[in-house]
Structure formats: C-alpha cells, structure tokens
C-alpha cells in the first residue's frame, strides 16, 4: 500500500475517513493555492453517493475525485482568464472614454502629491493642494504655474492627466466587480453612450487569438478529464451490474434450494397439502 509522505501527512492531518482511505491510492494532487478542505469535501460527497463496495470501487472513486477536481480546476482557470481579460478590456474602454469630470478629483490628488515634493519650501503648507485644485478647475494662472513647475522636473501635464484617468478607470472596474449600484449604472451608461455593451466587450475579448488558444487548450484538458471520469463511472456501473447479476443468481439458487427443502413429501395414498 502507498505509504508516501503526502499520504501520511493527510492521515496525520485529521481529515475525514473517506479522504484518509482514498489517500492510500495516491496523495491529493493540489496545485499552489488550491483548497485541501474543498478536496476532502468532494471526496466525502462522492463516497457518500457511490458507497464503495470493495477496494476496486475505492480505486475508481479516487479516480473520479481526482478527475472531477481537475475538471473544476480547468473550468475555474478558463473563467478566471476570460474574466481577467474582460475586466482589462473594460478598464481600457473606461480609460479611453472617461470624461474629465469623472477623474478631475484624482487628477487634483495626483498633482498635489507631485507638487508637494517640488514647490519651494517658503510657500505655505497648503500651497501645493490649493494650486493643484485650482489647476484641476482649469484656472489659467494655476495651469500656467503648474506647467512651469512640471517642466522643471521633466514631466508634463498630459502624462499626469493620463495617470489620473488610468487610476480612476481601475477604481471603477474594482467597484463594478463589487456590483456597486451607482458604478454599475455609470459603466452601463458609458458603454451605451459609446454604442457598446458589456457583452460586446466580452465578445471582443474572446476574439483575441491568444485567449482563444488558452480557452481551447483548457477545454481540451477538461474534455479529456470528463471522458476519463465518465469511463470510471461506467466501470462502477458495470461492476454493480455484474455484482447485482451474481447476487440475483445466487439468491435465486438459494431460494430454489430452500424450496426443495421445504417441499413436503407427498403423503402415501393421500394429497399433499
């Protein structure tokens, strides 16, 4: 029997009975970041559903669990890739289309940080903040002053604006993922204004050739694992059918034998009851 170190670790870790038993056929093949408790729960559920009759049933169950885990892994990875790419596409879209009003606050904050490090020390403490906000409100004196300061440190206003827009786009995407109602409405409105929808962005993402290659590969791996899992399920069915047939035949033969024993001998010269 397998006595490898991982199997022993599982036994020592106080995991459920079925999980400990199945670890005899190999350790849990978890990748970095995967949840061992969720794996054990899957083992428990499948064992409860199949009720293994012997060691070979247990071998097939260990197989089914490992393959099911793999199927779930590839599906999760595929969804995660599509989701990451779709959110990146949404972020790019927002970065391209955000109105200045939506990120002027971020621009002021970013500009304040830059100015604080680069204004003369004799200026009042809130000078950088006041100047940045005045610049963000597009007051011409403030804009000129900021351009001059930024020129002195080899930076330009467009880059700061772009950084603020990117930051706001990223923030909006995070809020969109959390389903914050105001942000969901805003994003949908921006998409509608541009004649697009989140589905269009998703479709564009899927058209991206490198993502399609990944998706195809993951689908292929999931299909292989599914067909192997189904083969193991069929083997359990077949074994149950064979066992069932053998049991039925045995029971029938035992009953036939019992009938023979119970059959009363015919009474001489009389009728058997």
């Amino acid at each position: 029997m397998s006595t490898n170190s991982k199997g022993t670790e599982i036994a020592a870790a106080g995991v459920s009975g079925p999980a400990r038993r199945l670890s005899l056929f190999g350790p849990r093949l978890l990748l970095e970041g995967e949840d061992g408790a969720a794996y054990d729960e899957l083992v428990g559920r499948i064992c409860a559903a199949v009720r293994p009759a012997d060691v070979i049933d247990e071998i097939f169950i260990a197989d089914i669990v490992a393959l099911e885990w793999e199927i779930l892994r590839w599906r999760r990875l595929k969804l995660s890739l599509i989701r990451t790419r779709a959110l990146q596409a949404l972020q790019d879209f927002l970065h391209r289309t955000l109105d200045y009003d939506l990120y002027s606050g971020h621009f002021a904050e970013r500009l304040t940080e830059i100015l604080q490090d680069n204004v003369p020390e004799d200026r009042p403490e809130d000078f950088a903040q006041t100047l940045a906000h005045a610049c963000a409100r597009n007051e011409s004196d403030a804009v000129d002053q900021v351009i001059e300061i930024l020129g002195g440190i080899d930076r330009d206003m467009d880059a700061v604006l772009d950084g603020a827009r990117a930051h706001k786009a990223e923030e909006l995407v995070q809020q969109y993922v959390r389903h914050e109602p105001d942000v969901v409405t805003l994003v949908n409105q921006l998409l509608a204004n541009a004649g697009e929808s989140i589905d269009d962005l998703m479709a564009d993402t899927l058209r991206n050739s490198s993502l399609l290659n990944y998706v195809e590969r993951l689908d292929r791996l999931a299909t292989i694992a599914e067909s192997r899992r189904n083969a193991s399920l069929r083997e359990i069915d077949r074994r149950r059918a064979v066992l069932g047939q053998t049991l039925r035949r045995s029971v029938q033969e035992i009953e036939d034998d019992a009938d023979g024993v119970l059959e009363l001998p015919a009474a001489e010269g009389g009728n058997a009851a």
Partner: protein
Amino acid sequence: LTSARKVRANRANARASTGPQTTRGRARAARNALRHALSLPVGSIPALSEEVEALAREIAGPGANAATRDLARRVAEAQIDLRRVRDARHQFLSDTLSQGYYSYAKMRMKVKILRALLLPNSPDISMDALEFATSNPSLEGPDKLATILLEETKELLAMDRYERRALSRRKFAVRAFDEARARTATMGLNVTRTR
C-alpha cells in the same frame, strides 16, 4: 518490383531518419526514457514493487487462490503505474509553477522588437510595442498556469499517453479480475449445493 535505385534511396533515407547522429545527440536521446522513468515497468522499481504487492493483497482479499492473486496483481500494477504518471505530471506542473516562467512565444516577439530597434535604420515602433518589449516578462496568476499548459503541451501530451495506457491496462485487468471472482463465486455456490 521495387527498382534497385528506389531501394538505394529508401536505405539512404532510412539511414538519415534514425535519430540523432552526433555522439552528444545520441547520449541525450539515450537519457530520454529516464527523464520521468515512466517507461520503466513498475516491477523494475523495488519501492513500487512493494506497493504493488501490498495493494494486490488488499484487492485479492484473504484466502484468495493463486489465479485470483495474479489477476489482482495486474490491477495493482496498472493502478500504481497510473499513480506514478499522475504524480509525475503534478510534480512537473507544481515545479514549473513555483519558478519564474517566461512565455517562449512572447520572449521571441520581444527579442524581435528589440532587435529591430538596434538596427541602424530602425523602423518606427509604436509605444504599445515598446512597452510590451520592455515589460516584465515573468508571468503570474492564471496567465502563468494557462501559458504553461499551452507551451508545455509536448511534455504534457507525452505524460498523457502514459496515463491513457495505464488506464486501459487497469480497465482490462479489473474486468478480468471481476470475471474470475464471479466464476469463483458461482463455483463455490455449486459446491455448496452439491453438498
């Protein structure tokens, strides 16, 4: 009838298609089978042989006859072989994931862009391309695993072939074992009835 010219050409072609020609190439090819040792039979590895015997005993159950024990050993061999292949694949994925991984395809594109930049009359290159060429090439998160699966297909397919064979061997071994056990059960019943 094949002409003498064709025979000569076939022989010359065959000589050209017999693997590596250099001593270094031949030495490297000779180590192929040892890379995962998956082509070695389970019986030739002492630690695994012990596991096979232990599992076979458990499958056969107490008081099994020699024929049943033999069939149980076939099931156990295939099962341990299957576990060995899956462990090897898992180890490969875990090891690759734990190291910095660079997409070969992306690296090639980056080198192409950077090489173009170094030319005396370098062509106009967009900011996006330049950003891509100078970005951190190491992959993280879901992209890393997906890229490993895509770019290490050859290695993973080789392991998959071993897994498929082990699964097939186990299926037929289990069926043979089940048939033998059903026969034994029927025979046992007949003996009981005869008595």
